[in-house]
């Protein structure tokens, strides 16, 4: 017999999880839970956390983090000015999740808790070096996103923990980013492969703080240090872009599954990175050009 509880405070939820964690299922947007009847069937208690104010909200914390509540929806993130200013990459990725109907319900916390290797927000959060704030009855901790996932559908969360928010360190300077995904069709698709990219752009066309992450090509989303190293501190050239793309191909430990093949995924991440870098290369050259001309004139 299934029970449904709508709790009004985080403390109450923590209390519930402490007592009944193993037989409880949290529901915020429900877009994932309700398409998995087996998970719904195995739960005895459904805890609706969608109305908890503690899990909502987007803002900047006093210690300089962008905080996004776990129950904030993908659409809210995609549309939010603060996110766009400080973590544009995350807004880009969230805008590509599912359909508008799914984005209106599906939450960032849900995307993390489900830990799908293909979750679109995750490569972005890896690049942004986010931390996942977890709370339980008498404790709390912030887990760096790169340590949060253990495998497909597996995280470091204990049965009595829930995700309170995601914290993203604020960045200074001019940053460039993109999120590219390959799916079976254009809209409303689970990613076959995805690439998130973030870097700081300098006046001399150099890129620093380069972060490259891939989705759907390994048991969890992964960073690609070799690709980052190929671009770090350098002016973006076609050769370096290709080297980074090659590094992505190498890093992908993809499998054959229902959506695609191992070989294709390896090609795809390389091509997706290039697809994102080429316009950036053009843009940065275009930005640099007028200055050169003015120098010549002088």
């Amino acid at each position: 017999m299934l029970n449904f509880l709508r709790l009004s405070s985080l403390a109450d939820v923590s209390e519930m999880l402490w007592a009944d964690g193993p037989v409880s299922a949290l529901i915020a947007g429900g877009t994932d839970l309700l398409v998995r009847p087996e998970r719904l069937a195995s739960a005895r208690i459904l805890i609706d956390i969608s109305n908890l104010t503690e899990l909502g909200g987007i803002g900047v914390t006093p210690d300089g983090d962008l905080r996004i509540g776990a129950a904030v929806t993908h659409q809210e993130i995609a549309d939010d000015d603060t996110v766009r200013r400080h973590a544009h990459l995350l807004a880009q990725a969230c805008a590509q999740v599912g359909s508008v109907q799914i984005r209106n319900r599906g939450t960032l916390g849900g995307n993390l808790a489900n830990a799908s290797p293909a979750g679109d927000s995750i490569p972005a959060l890896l690049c942004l070096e986010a931390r996942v704030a977890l709370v339980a009855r008498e404790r709390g901790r912030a887990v760096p996103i790169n340590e949060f996932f253990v495998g497909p559908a597996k995280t470091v969360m204990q049965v009595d923990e829930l995700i309170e928010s995601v914290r993203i360190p604020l960045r200074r300077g001019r940053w460039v980013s993109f999120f590219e995904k390959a799916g079976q069709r254009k809209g409303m698709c689970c990613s076959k492969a995805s690439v998130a990219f973030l870097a700081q752009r300098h006046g001399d066309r150099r890129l620093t703080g380069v972060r490259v992450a891939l989705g759907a090509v390994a048991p969890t989303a992964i960073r690609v240090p070799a690709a980052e190293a190929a671009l770090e501190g350098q002016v973006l050239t076609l050769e370096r872009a290709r080297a980074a793309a090659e590094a992505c191909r190498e890093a992908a430990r993809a499998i054959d599954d229902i959506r695609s093949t191992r070989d294709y995924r390896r090609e795809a991440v390389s091509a997706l990175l290039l697809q994102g870098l080429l316009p950036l290369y053009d843009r940065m050259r275009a930005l640099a050009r007028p200055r050169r001309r003015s120098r010549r004139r002088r």
Partner: protein
Amino acid sequence: MTKPKSFRVVGKPVAKKDAPALALGAPLFCADRVPPRCLVGRILGSPHAHARIRAIDISAAEKLPGVHAVLCHTNVPRVMRTTAGQGAPEPSPYDFTTFDAKVRFVGDRVAAVAAETAAIAEEALRAIRVEYEVLEPVLDPRQAMKSGAPVIHDEPDAHAVIPVPYEPQRNLASHVDTMVGEPDRAFREADIVLEGEFVTPYAQHTPIETHCCLAEPLLDGRLRLTTSTQVPFHARRIVAQALELPVSRIHVVKPRIGGGFGAKQEVLIEDVAALLAQRSGRPVYLELSRREEFVSSRTRHSMVVGLKIGAQKNGELAAVDLRVLSNTGAYGSHALTVSCNCGSKVLPLYRWPHIRFTADAVYTNLPVAGAYRGYGATQAAFAMESLMDELARRLGCDPIELRLRHAIRKGETSPIFRALGEGSEGVEQSIGSTGLERCLKLGARAIGWKKKWGNARWHAPQGALRRGIGMCALMQGSSIPQVDMGGAFLKLNEDGSFNLLVGATDLGTGSDTVLAQVAAEVLGVNVEQIVVTSSDTDLTPFDVGAYASSTTYLSGMAVRKAAENAAAQIRKVAARLLSAKASEIRLENGSAVAPGGKSVTLARVACHSLYEHDQHQIAGFASHISEKSPPPFSAHFAEVVVDTETGLVKVEKYVAAVDCGTAINPQLAEGQTEGAVLNGISYALCEEYLFTEQGRMRNDSFREYKIFCTRDVPQLTTILVPTYEPTGPFGAKSVSEIGINGPMPAISNAIFDAVGVRLRQAPFTPERVLEALRRG
């Protein structure tokens, strides 16, 4: 019939009659009409691809509180039949019974229950104990044809009901063999011989409304089935057959239905719903889940089409050899006729002097194929139009020119028309109308063919992107000649309105509106004056239903004849009222008008005939069969961009020019064309069933089996090319199927134009394109 100078209602974009209520979300569909306290039906599907049911115990399920009926092979009579909704006797083999002691694909029926709630019904399914003897499955049609392969239909009572080859012991569901002239000699003497094998996947119609049926026992002991069907009259006959009842005990009503595309030309769940209602004495609603729809309803026949064509250096066509291997899955529904259509809707398009056509439809332990828009022509056109493209390149000529030169013309015939019918011989016919030449010309202009074809600058690579352009030509048919029949009945009411009763089935195509337009044109009234009642086996005349591109052409002609019949009676009464000669009276603007302009309204005519003098009901009735199946023609053009790094094929522009005769409702004809084209593009680029080695479908949901959405739609241009078909109502032919046949060859040809790689296996997924590019 000769072409009238102008039309009043025909050819106008009249709004669909049912659209306002549909847009308001009114309860018009089967699921919206489920009465309170209705039982819920559920079907237990087989977990095995091939197994014998050694024992089945339904007692625990029967004892569950709230369960009102449990069906399985031990308590349901065995009546061999087919689920294919075709005219009787059906050309599909009788290899199916409501429940059998053997299951032949994952998802095959094992049992069914009716219970008070869905939860109880599901619990009841879990309570059914089945002991299976698992048999070796055979999933590949080539393996299935080998000697020693597991025999899928080893039951002694599987049989064909018409005299056609049927060898279930060899897993052969049908075989067709036709020859014209001396193809072997012609190939030997040909300068150029091209050959290829073209593979098309299992794919599905995926109507957004799945199969559903409400069965209600009536007070007089009859059963009423409100069901999402394309074939209400065949459904009545087949359910009666399954339940061993006279058809008079069954009443089938088709409400609005949420798409069919051939999937609902199958009497798939009505038998179970009817039996559950009969046994429980309660109304039962049975609907397939999306997963069941994928696995257990019907699919397109996956085919391997081998094609060989021969030609001379001067471009003369020499011979064609078309060999079809069709996978019909676990049952032979439409196996024979879909195979025949591969030849009959593709080979007559060009004037081949020598022809060989062979087709085998083979049983496998995979989901069951059936009727799907295009009906075999889709698969064969992929092969033919791809090889014609290759031939044009070999000859160094424009592919449009090649088609223009060899396409069948008005007044000509093809030996294929006579040779290939629906399991029997075909019907000889000559082409009464063709707009193919104009389709080719207007389509080429719309896509900018002259500027792009062979233009190196236009083809210049942009990074990893390559551009290409491709085209194809197509034909289909309109109804099954000398087989299909439609009936129409029309009566005049006091206010000058008419009730039009037709057996014809509107699947969302707008046929109720189209048929009302035909009647209104004849009777000189507005469409609003025609009240349409369709697809009700108690009320309306017979009609074979909506398939074989027949409704507008065939049922439309029945309506025209019925309306003319009623019009003659109106003229007779009006003649008395106007003191004029009946033959001189015209019907226009809701009135009967005598020469000189004196007129009387139809309302007055009706009142006079109903109440005043020589009282009688003015009513027209007609049936129509066609001696011909006039082909609509079409030319399709695709412009693609191929990303050589991701393998992604993007269709940028797509043009479909179609000759459907007179478009009775041009907006609806465009809608049919665009829908068919997009369905075809989606099929060409991403739709495909994936199976495990045990024959279980892996991508049995919309999460994994993707159909195109708004973001995938290319710039789509539809051009209606009017012609006048003398045998159709006001010159109409058909339009619903032909559009789906073009995208696969047109896109494949465009991909070749872009990257020089010919894809012979669909869909053209990025994975496949990239692999082909790597192979070179």
